[in-house]
């Protein structure tokens, strides 16, 4: 079968499944049923993107297209227990753990006691009477423009929702543990998250992705929508530590209201093919957005970070720092776009992407982009790809530190820079540990 046919066949199979789903889950949430139908049309038109598509030119989805995926259903969930999840606790003993097992919230495995007043966490069924929240669901991430959002929208059946009321400051970290449990058949997992941050609220959310157990291939197709209210402050981390075989495409859309702040860290360590799409819309004035990313790759991993910082309004600030260490035969991709729309005067937008290549079979493709339609702006991007600084290396060696140790010290320092900006200390330390485990697995070649 030709590659194109494989893509078409896979796409058609997904659409057929979605049509069955529409009947299965349609009646419970009629408004969503209508959106789901539109998504089916959108996905049918686009299909799984090929490398001919400019936005997908560096990542080959053939391995996804040629796998005979079946969409996970409620029957594929609810098997894990609380102890399975506890090992992934990253933000201290008080943190709330919500386990989303193969796309569906598993309350029994979760630790959801001690949720502060003004904070609600649940699945779509818990929020169906909350019109304000429901109005956000499925509306921010555009399935018209993104095939993989359409795929999720037409297949997801159990979105998880976090709502924080106005003026609530929640110190307890909310960790969403996405547990991928492989089964007998290859599983497509269409997880979906909606976070609604009320005006002047402040809290921390962690999404972490794990594989538990072994089995057939898995493909997480996740969409997260984060609505940041006026003057709200949201700290968000996305942590990818799935198994070696995992395929994962996620789409993260943030909408930011006036005076709001968000700090988003994307840490990608696991998975075979991982694509992170971040779309941050600065939708009002005086918004501050920080996007940090770190990817450390070995073996044959492919990790593609696609970010869009969309400055739609004047007087906003964004700062993006992405760093990568790529070893073995791994491939890294960074595609970061800063888009300053016509009226977004007085925009300050910065972006930096730095990469270290550790092996001659490794590769890195970087495409930083500036698209600027307003004149009174200060925007810049910088990108470097290379090896460790020779001078620094020599300095360390001249102090008696052997070359291998010197290199790993410098690699750590290079990467830690991103994690050090995570505000929550416990979380920061957990991430640092994850980083060190991964770094120690890298082959360090002189």
């Amino acid at each position, binding site marked *: 079968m030709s590659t194109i046919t494989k893509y078409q066949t896979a796409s058609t199979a997904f659409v057929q499944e979605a049509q069955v789903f529409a009947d299965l889950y349609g009646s419970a949430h009629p408004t969503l049923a209508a959106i789901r139908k539109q998504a089916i049309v959108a996905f049918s038109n686009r299909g799984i993107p090929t490398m001919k598509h400019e936005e997908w030119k560096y990542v080959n989805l053939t391995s996804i297209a040629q796998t005979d995926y079946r969409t996970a259903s409620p029957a594929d969930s609810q098997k894990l227990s609380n102890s399975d999840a506890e090992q992934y606790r990253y933000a201290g003993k008080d943190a709330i753990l919500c386990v989303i097992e193969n796309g569906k919230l598993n309350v029994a495995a979760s630790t959801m006691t001690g949720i502060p007043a003004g904070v609600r966490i649940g699945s779509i069924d818990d929020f169906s009477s909350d019109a304000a929240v429901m109005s956000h669901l499925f509306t921010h991430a555009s399935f018209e423009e993104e095939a993989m959002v359409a795929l999720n929208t037409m297949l997801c059946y159990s979105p998880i929702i976090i709502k924080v009321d106005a003026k609530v400051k929640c110190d307890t970290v909310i960790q969403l543990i996405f547990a991928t449990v492989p089964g007998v058949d290859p599983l497509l997992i269409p997880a979906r998250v909606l976070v609604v941050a009320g005006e002047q609220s402040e809290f921390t959310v962690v999404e972490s992705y794990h594989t538990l157990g072994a089995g057939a291939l898995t493909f997480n197709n996740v969409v997260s929508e984060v609505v940041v209210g006026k003057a709200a402050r949201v700290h968000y981390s996305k942590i990818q530590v799935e198994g070696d075989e995992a395929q994962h495409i996620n789409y993260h859309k943030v909408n930011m209201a006036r005076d709001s702040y968000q700090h988003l860290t994307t840490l990608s360590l696991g998975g075979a093919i991982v694509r992170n799409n971040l779309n941050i819309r600065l939708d009002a004035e005086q918004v501050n957005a920080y996007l940090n990313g770190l990817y450390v790759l070995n073996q044959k991993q492919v990790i593609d970070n696609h970010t869009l910082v969309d400055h739609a309004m004047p007087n906003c600030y964004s700062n993006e720092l992405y760093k990568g260490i790529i070893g073995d035969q791994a491939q890294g991709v960074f595609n970061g776009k800063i888009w300053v729309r*016509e009226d977004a*005067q007085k925009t300050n937008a910065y972006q930096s992407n730095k*990469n270290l290549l550790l092996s001659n079979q490794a*590769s*890195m493709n970087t495409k930083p982009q*500036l698209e600027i339609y307003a004149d009174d702006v200060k*925007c*810049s991007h910088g990108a*470097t*790809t290379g090896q460790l600084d020779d001078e620094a290396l020599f300095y360390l060696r001249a102090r008696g530190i052997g070359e291998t140790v010197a290199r790993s010290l410098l690699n750590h320092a290079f990467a830690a820079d991103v994690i050090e900006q995570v505000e929550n200390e416990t979380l920061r330390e957990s991430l640092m540990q994850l980083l060190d485990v991964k770094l120690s697995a890298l082959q360090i070649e002189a």
Partner: protein
Amino acid sequence: MSEDLKILDEVTNSEYKYGFVSNIESDNAPKGLDESTVRFISAKKNEPEWLLEWRLKSFRHWLTLEEPTWANVHYPKIDFQDIIYYSAPKKKPSLNSLDELDPEIKATFDKLGISLIEQQRLAGVAVDAVIDSVSVKTTFRETLGELGIIFCSFSEAVHDHPDLIKKYLGSVIPHTDNYYAALNSAVFSDGSFCYIPKGVRCPMELSTYFRINSAGTGQFERTLIIAEEGSFVSYLEGCTAPMRDENQLHAAIVEIISHTDATVKYSTVQNWYPGDKNGKGGIYNFVTKRGICMGDRAKISWTQVETGSAITWKYPSVILKGDYSVGEFYSVAVTNNMQQADTGTKMIHLGKKTKSIIISKGISCGKSQNSYRGLVRIGKKAEHARNFSQCDSLLIGDKCGAHTFPYIEVGNKTAKVEHEATTSKVGEDQIFYCNQRGISTEDAVNLIVNGYCKEVFNQLPMEFAVEAQKLLAISLEGSVG
């Protein structure tokens, strides 16, 4: 709007000064494009069979291609059947004596400030003048001939140096390369040919001056430069066209081969008619330029000052094949009014210790859109390759856009690739500082922009640099507001 900016806003409507039409009778091919057009051109040029075959092969390939849409430019679909593919001044241009040259042609070039009379040239610049589809005059041929340098029109080279043409034509840009390259390969009418023998340092600047004159024509010229081992040549290219309401297509090809230890510097001042203030008319400048550093320590340096054309689509590139070879790209691209530019370079590193530098300065004014698009690729075997890129954009006015699309592909860990890009507007504090010293805002903008482009202008031969600065000033007129 500040008072100063208002004043500047009034100083608008600068006219395109090369917009006149010369009354030169021309010999045209019938409108439209099919195999007979290709045969017509080939026959007109009395070409050998192999070249006709090559053209037909290109044409047939072109038919299978689709017009590219990935560039950040927008224009109505081109009707390729509504273009005249061959237009030549009717009077046979003289090759021996300037006296035999059509006085109207001579006057045209005088008006453009290009003197074809060798004695009147201040600096030693040899010129190949191309009007519409054909070369009308090449100066200093004898002087150059003594050194073994061949500098002539492409058509003459086909007849006089068929072996070189056969060997190198399409060797850097194959006829299958892209839509416009395939089109050019099918219908190219003339252009310049230049050959620098081993060890020769070309004693003067070689220059081609391109002029579109006839209405309804497309210009499809082709330049081929071969620098043998250890040679050096600096090559200049200038372009203008009359003001017309219609859009005219210019789809040229430049191929450069730089052998071991050879250096080729190629400078362009592109000032095709950009269209009027409302975006009516202007040249579509869809050009493929590429050089290859064949041998070790070969060097190719592109410098371009792009001020003209309604749409510019060009990416002068270097394939760094030889070890220690060097590729350079220095560019100033100014867009005003409704102009659109999507330009940049490709540096393909294949050899060891190859080095490239990219300095791009984009200036957007009016309602124009200006994009830098570039590729730096470090191949698996390009040990210790280096690239440094600096792409800056300056915005003048709030209706224009400045965009940067760099692609950086690194496949070797010993590479060191650095890319920086900034976008900003002309600093109000800088303008104020100048004002306070008695400099008008318009002059201040000019001064600041000139300073901003200095790194690129410095790469141009002196005479050209002055020309480029003047051109920049004209292009910027009326842009502040």
